[in-house]
């Protein structure tokens, strides 16, 4: 498989702090790649660096043959990269429908994708007229993911989708991510290793802003020492 996204040795600073010190990763077309690491390892900063929210000072980010360095965030998003931030970032004062419609890049995007989106998250259709702020945590997470599906995004960056959700909702979320990955490539940041290992084909492990290793998820699942050392899971 060819790479849809390549992150090559990026160095990102927030203020004076050197957060990412040479992170590299590759996301193949049609795959789900998990970006793993402890709290504070630099996973979210990596996603933000890809999107240009915290632009890397060194290194290169290439999406579908185009270098993203120096481009502005809205421009990068327009290339077909959807971001589902952590903490269920919905627009609280907009209704569910407005939250979805605002993500349209072309008129009629939502109408074309409605069957797929409401098929993945049937609750959203029922809650269409409610405001984002009135939804439960799980519903907000569904809405945040659904929003990224409205335009024709070729790559989805999903940050901690299972955070703070009940187990039953996590299962629904996992099923949805699995289904949507048939249409889009996914780079998934996930603290919950069980969730990540069941969804992803490949992984990149980072620690303290540095690349540790990358490979097939099936191999990592067998490597209990690495899991224990870097993720704290047995």
């Amino acid at each position, binding site marked *: 498989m060819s790479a849809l996204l390549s992150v090559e040795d990026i160095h990102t600073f927030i203020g004076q702090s050197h957060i990412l010190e040479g992170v590299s990763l590759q996301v193949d077309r049609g795959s789900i790649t998990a970006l793993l690491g402890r709290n504070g390892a630099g996973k979210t900063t990596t996603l933000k660096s890809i999107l240009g929210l915290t632009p890397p000072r060194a290194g290169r980010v290439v999406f579908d043959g185009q270098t993203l360095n120096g481009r502005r*965030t809205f421009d990068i998003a327009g290339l077909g990269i959807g971001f589902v931030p952590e903490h269920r970032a919905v627009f609280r004062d907009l209704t569910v429908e407005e939250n979805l419609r605002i993500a349209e890049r072309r008129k009629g995007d939502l109408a074309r994708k409605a069957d797929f989106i409401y098929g993945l998250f049937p609750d959203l259709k029922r809650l269409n007229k409610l405001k984002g702020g009135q939804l439960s945590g799980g519903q907000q997470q569904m809405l945040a993911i659904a929003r990224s599906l409205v335009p024709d995004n070729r790559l989805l960056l999903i940050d901690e989708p299972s955070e703070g959700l009940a187990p039953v909702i996590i299962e629904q979320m996992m099923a949805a991510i699995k289904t949507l990955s048939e249409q889009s490539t996914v780079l998934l940041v996930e603290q919950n290793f069980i969730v990540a290992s069941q969804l992803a084909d490949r992984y990149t492990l980072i620690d303290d802003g540095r690349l540790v290793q990358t490979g097939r998820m099936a191999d990592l699942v067998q490597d209990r020492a690495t899991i224990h050392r870097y993720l704290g899971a047995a």
Partner: protein
Amino acid sequence: MESTAPTTQRPVLARAGWLQRDGLLLAALAVLALFPFITSLLSGEAVDQGAPKFFQGLLIQMFIFAVYAMSYDLLMGYTGILSFGHALFFGSGAYMMGIALKHLQWPLLGAVGLVIVVAIVQSLIIGVLSLRVHGVYFAMVTLAFAQVAFLLATATDFRQWTGAEDGLQGIPVPALVSPTDNRLRFYYLALVFMVIMYLLARRIVNSPTGRVLVAIRENENRATMIGYNVFVFKMIAVILAGVFAALAGSLNALWNLNATPTVLGLDMTIEALLMTIIGGVGTLIGPMLGSGVLTILGYWLNATFGRNWLLILGVIYVLLVLFLPYGLVGTWRRQSARFGPGGWRELLRRTRS
């Protein structure tokens, strides 16, 4: 038969929803349209004399301020941009109208065109130079721009154009819209102006662009991540708010037959801020209501308490902000959402208990 039922019912339902949504507004509009005749009937005076004429004047000022407050709501309420220099647009609108009619001797429509063009140019300058900074920093930059305009208006160097500290007096208003020739006609002109501007503003905030403005208010980064160029949309908000305020200012010049430096002063911006906060930020109709409360309350307090009226008005402001933090309309909507249609009654009951 069954298949035709939904198509015959839908328009009726749509009409019912429309009536439910706008019924109160239409009733208010009907009262305002009949107001001159109601006051005439109640006072026993002719519609263009005495008390009816006086109250028409009060409402004309209210209609103008309603549009001005609404323009501030587009900026602060819907887009989350705090400005301390909104009077710049209102005042410039007034001065441009005066200069076009008095010095350039342009026709009214040409003067309106000048008002709009100047407002757009001002908005572009302010937007390009200041929208890179956020929050109170943007507010301070706008304050500086407004103060520059205030100083220019009072400068003696431009006396022949602006009248300096005396202001631009004796604006020759065309007879068709002259408030002195026919106040009742001017009353309806101001009312129609307010209604049109409200419908336009409502169309804007309910459009996809309006939704993006709300999204920016909530979280700029999030809007950017979806793919919106936030700067462009904030610029659109500044231009729209600027043009709305300038048009309100131009009507103010026609109403008062002058444009004085006070229309460019900080007090004028604070008026907009107060009207918006008292009526309800981000509600559109709230700031209009706020203008009504401020104009009518101001008149009543002045008439009742004489020179101490400002002190009492200040206390009322504080109480309103303390007990209705979301403003009149904002609190109403929140209570309705919380307790259903009778939410307001429930709030009153709880307040009493």
